[in-house]
Structures are given as C-alpha cells and as structure tokens.
C-alpha cells in the first residue's frame, strides 16, 4: 500500500495505490498526517488504484474528515471502484464525503 502525495497551491491530492487493509492502515500514518495539514483547504483522495478497503481504512478517512469539518475544508473521494463504493454506501460514508 502506498499513498502518493501531490501538493498544489490550495489543495492536496493523495493517490491511494494497493490495499488499505488492517495491516496497511497501521503504516500510512505520516501520509495521512500530511493530508491533514490541508484540513482547511481541499483534500482530494484518488482511489483509482485502490483495490481494497476495510474498517481500519475507513477509520483513517473518518479521522481526516473530522479534521476537515472542524476547519471548514473539504474532502473529496474520486474514482472509487464499485466494490469500494459499495462499502462506502453500506456504512453511510458515501454521504459524508463529496464523491466524484
């Protein structure tokens, strides 16, 4: 699992590559913290190459969204696969984020 970060002037992008399972979720703390630095701006999470997510990954997304809401920013989830969208729907996460 890898999160490739791209910083822009007023936004940040995180490109998620691989599987965000329980093991992986314990290893991406620094990348999530980097994304969190843009909590007052726009954070784009690109899931085009994300193959899998479980509740440990959802927990990271929720923590990031809590930071963003507190600072009036925005978290966008883009290009999620149907399987991942299904998990976002089941858990109600789909209505917590802007989905593209």
């Amino acid at each position, binding site marked *: 699992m890898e999160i490739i970060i791209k910083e822009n002037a007023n936004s940040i992008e995180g490109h998620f590559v691989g599987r965000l399972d329980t093991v992986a979720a314990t290893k991406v703390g620094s990348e999530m913290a980097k994304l969190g630095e843009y909590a007052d701006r726009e954070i784009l999470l690109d899931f085009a190459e994300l193959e899998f997510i479980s509740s440990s990954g959802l927990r990271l997304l*929720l923590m990031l969204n809590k930071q963003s809401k507190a600072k009036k920013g925005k978290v966008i989830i883009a290009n999620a696969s149907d399987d991942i969208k299904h998990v976002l729907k*089941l*858990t109600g996460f789909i209505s917590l984020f802007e989905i593209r």
Partner: protein
Amino acid sequence: MYKLPITNDISEMEHLEEFVNEMAEAFNLADDFKFQLGLALDEAVANVVMYAYPDKEGMPIHIEADGEQGKKLIIRIIDEGVEFNPLAEAPEVDTDATTEDREIGGLGIFLVKESMDDVQYERKDGKNILTMTKNLL
C-alpha cells in the same frame, strides 16, 4: 479443507490476501465475492488479533475454509483466547450519523455481517469459533 494458521500479531494478517486469492481460485469466486470475503476475513481476524489474547504474543489463530463450488463457502476462525462473542459485543452502527457525530471504529463486525450471508459464534472446549458462510449461488 484449506487452512491458514497464524499468530496474534497484526503483521501476520499479511497472509490473508494470499489465502483469499487461493479461495477465489479454488471456488471460482466472482470479483465482488472475493472482495467481500477479503473484507469479512480482515475484519474478523483483526478482532481476534486485538482481543483474544490480551498481553500475550505468539498465540494461535486458526483460519479454515471449506465449501462447494457454486454452492457455499464456509470460513471458520478459531482461537483459544478469552471468551468473546464479537456478534454480541458489536455496537449498533448509525449509518446516518454525520461526520461530527460518528464514533471512530465499531464498523468491523457490521461489515462482516453485511459481507457474509450467515455469521455464527460458538464457545466450545475453551475455544472461540466464528463461522461465516457465503452463499455462492
């Protein structure tokens, strides 16, 4: 019967992906079923790793799979730790809650139940046995 013995360490969960791939091939699983099986296993095993053996390392967790192609797949997760029924302990999940009102965590067992067709817990001979069934029809 397919078996994957691991110990109660999060890093041991790296073996789950390969196990799921093996199941997918053996039972000719569609991609969405393979995803759901991976999800149920990640959640259920994480639960055992975190709660079954407080303060003990190198303790056994047995993962077994059996089934019939095109009919059903049965996964069992067995540990010899403290009695713990994840189905009874799991909190209610309010999927309509806002970000601010959301609790961190508590979604794991909810996702196990959503991903599988039947989930049963049993305490027998000092063991916790979680049996998860997926209909492959």
